[in-house]
């Protein structure tokens, strides 16, 4: 085993070791329950950064990346699955987000969870999640990916339901788990289909054979579409796309660091990662790609419209996450894989930042999440305010912050690849995104204070373990876009992802990207997205207020105007506020109708199945009661039985032997 292989193994061993140790002795560490978990993750981060540097900057493992087998996992006849791992450019890009955000969230949690008696459990779960997520990005075959897929689902379930004493948290955890199951069934079926059609589950071999098999007609186009859609169903579940998006907003019941780490920056990206990883498979089916783009952009606008009216600060961010994930899937669907991964990275940082910021706000106003009971916090929580402002500008897509580059890349690619309708909807979503983000900022930081008067004097800036991660996350949120995406279309990210998506681009007929033309189509598209973003921001500032003394900017909120607008758009408002009634629809279809079916089945179970079982049991019982009399407990009865049986056997032997 080479040093690099050992490091990759350590990358997995450290978090799982941290999980085991924290689970075993964490309770005894009391206030210091975090010490093992955070230590393990900091070490993991260092190793990951070393590997990322080797992969992306030194290109130490070549274009194909580092592949190795740790051991043979399932040796079952012809079905042999190895525990094999890979570090290539795509994995390295994911490692940057996962490990950095993961590490900062761990540090942040030291402060955030300081007063929770179950903090040892929390850190153990966080480490388990880090292990699962790293396994997910490092796995080099579909089955290992699936195992990690389920493990992140498990950690997510445990962490959403962390405060299991609260009924809503327990229900949200269950909902997340069940909705994910729907997607996972598709994913599992897709993996089985790959096994039966391709005959292997190892990524390099599958992706090498898929184009050949498609070309030779062994896999028909409809089969390929089915395969892609089954895998996509898994991604839809994990990344909370329409119609399986309902679990993510409820998942905000978990502690805020969890929302930041799992439900914004890492786990929900697993679907995007999986589709990007399996790009050679997806590009074989144009209709599947079209559907992915459609689902993605529909989710984007649906979620953005819901985010308009939500009052819970974390729910706004949750719908924003849905919307941004929709963007990523739209990018994947239009064939802009690089743009999707780029947006995944930038979104991971700025959405992590926004969530941690919202956690800081919630912490500061003593566990209040309703934005109508906040306001005027910019003076009392300056660091939180500044960092969240950076995050909001980044997500709104105003240059030169990170969001602009990745979002513009997606919209530009959509136009250029002939998906004008995706571009058109996308630009509306960009407008909405800018608007609802600054609505959030205005309601939270600028408007008049609606904080509970009892809490008002005690509102405070969060401890350093929480503000330092915010500051550290603000840096990549601000500069990552420039660092990776400039010049547009030929940035560092393009170079990194080029070997990964080379084959896909060839199949789709994409040549080298042309240089960016400021006065051509590119300039127009970029200008359009900046324009709508600025429009959205300005509208929100005008309605909900804004104030940055440093720049001399100030705007008073206009609640009366908001009121009038709301009244005029009452049906839309009601629909948006009730999340377009998806939960009620699910309730009607699955809970009510399903309940009727279940009641019928229950009757069948009780009267027919249980009847049969109870009948058998009753028969056994009655015969047993009868037979009990021959068990006298007297040795001599038994001895007589032995003697008689012996005679019967001997006589039988003679009779049979005499013939």
């Amino acid at each position, binding site marked *: 085993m080479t040093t690099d292989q050992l490091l990759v193994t350590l990358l997995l061993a450290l978090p799982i070791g941290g999980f085991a140790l924290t689970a075993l002795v964490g309770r005894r560490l009391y206030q210091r329950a975090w010490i093992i978990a955070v230590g393990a993750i900091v070490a993991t981060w260092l190793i990951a950064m070393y590997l990322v540097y080797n992969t992306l900057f030194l290109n130490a493992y070549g274009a194909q990346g580092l592949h190795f087998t740790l051991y043979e996992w399932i040796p079952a006849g012809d079905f042999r699955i190895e525990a094999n791992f890979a570090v290539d450019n795509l994995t390295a890009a994911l490692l940057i987000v996962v490990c950095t955000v993961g590490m900062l969230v761990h540090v942040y949690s030291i402060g955030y969870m300081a007063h929770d008696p179950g903090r040892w459990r929390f850190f153990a779960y966080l480490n388990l999640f880090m292990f699962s997520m790293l396994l997910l990005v490092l796995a080099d075959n579909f089955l290992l990916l699936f195992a990690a897929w389920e493990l992140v689902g498990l950690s997510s379930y445990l962490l959403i339901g962390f405060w299991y004493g609260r009924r809503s948290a327990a229900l949200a955890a269950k909902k997340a788990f069940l909705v994910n199951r729907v997607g996972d069934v598709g994913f599992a079926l897709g993996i089985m289909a790959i096994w039966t059609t391709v005959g292997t589950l190892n990524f390099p071999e599958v992706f090498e054979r898929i184009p050949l098999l498609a070309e030779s007609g062994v896999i028909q186009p409809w089969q390929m579409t089915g395969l892609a859609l089954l895998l996509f169903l898994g991604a839809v579940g994990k990344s909370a796309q329409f119609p399986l998006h309902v679990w993510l907003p409820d998942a905000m019941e978990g502690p805020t660091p969890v929302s930041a780490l799992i439900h914004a920056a890492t786990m929900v990206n697993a679907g995007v990662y999986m589709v990007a990883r399996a790009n050679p498979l997806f590009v074989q089916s144009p209709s599947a790609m079209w559907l992915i783009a459609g689902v993605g952009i529909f989710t984007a606008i649906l979620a953005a419209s819901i985010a308009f009216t939500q009052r819970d600060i974390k729910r706004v961010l949750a719908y924003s996450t849905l919307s941004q994930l929709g963007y990523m899937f739209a990018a994947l669907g239009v064939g802009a894989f690089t743009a999707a991964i780029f947006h995944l990275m930038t979104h991971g940082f700025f959405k992590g930042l926004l969530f941690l910021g919202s956690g800081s706000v919630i912490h500061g106003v003593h566990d209040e999440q309703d934005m109508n009971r906040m306001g005027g916090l910019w003076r009392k929580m300056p660091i939180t305010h500044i960092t969240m402002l950076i995050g909001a500008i980044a997500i709104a897509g105003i240059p030169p912050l990170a969001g602009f580059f990745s979002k513009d890349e997606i919209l530009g690619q959509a136009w250029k690849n002939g998906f004008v309708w995706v571009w058109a909807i996308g630009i509306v979503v960009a407008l909405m995104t800018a608007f609802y983000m600054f609505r959030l900022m205005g309601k939270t930081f600028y408007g008049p204070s609606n904080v509970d008067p009892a809490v008002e004097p005690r509102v405070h800036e969060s401890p350093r373990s929480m503000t330092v991660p915010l500051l550290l996350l603000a840096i990549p949120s601000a500069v990552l876009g420039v660092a990776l995406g400039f010049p547009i279309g030929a940035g560092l990210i393009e170079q990194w992802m080029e070997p990964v998506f080379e084959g896909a681009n060839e199949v789709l007929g994409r040549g080298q990207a042309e240089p960016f033309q400021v006065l051509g189509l590119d300039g127009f598209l970029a200008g359009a997205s900046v324009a709508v973003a600025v429009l959205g921001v300005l509208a929100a500032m005008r309605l909900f207020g804004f104030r940055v003394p440093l720049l001399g900017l100030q705007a008073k909120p206009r609640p009366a105007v908001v009121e009038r607008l709301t009244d005029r758009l009452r049906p839309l408002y009601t629909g948006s506020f009730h999340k377009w009634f998806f939960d009620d629809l699910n309730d009607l279809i699955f809970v009510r109708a399903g309940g009727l079916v279940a009641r019928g089945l229950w009757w069948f179970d009780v009267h027919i199945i249980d009847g049969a079982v109870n009948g058998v049991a009753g028969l056994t019982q009655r015969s047993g009661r009868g037979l009990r009399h021959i*068990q006298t*407990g*007297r*040795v*001599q009865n038994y*001895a*007589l039985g032995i*003697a008689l049986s012996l005679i019967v056997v001997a006589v039988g032997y003679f009779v049979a032997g005499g013939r």
Partner: protein
Amino acid sequence: MSQSLDAYLVLASLLFCIGTFGFLARRNAIAMLMSIELMINAVNLVIVAFGAFTPELADRASVIALIVMAVAAAEATVGLAIVIAIYRNRRTPLVDEYHSMRE
């Protein structure tokens, strides 16, 4: 008659069956143990009889018979000790009163 192996074997069979009957029919634990002794003696008789009619096995038959006797002695010791122990608890030597196994 005494020159025929069959005679000895028939004798041993009858002794063995008497022992079997005693073991199955007697209620007294000690009587049952005595019946076991009868059966062991029947088996021993068979061994010695076979030895006596098979010249090359004669010595070995005697050795085996002696060892069987020693083991039977050990069996009798432990068996009777158990009977006495049970008797002390249950105040009866009658085996059909020992039916705790039933519960």
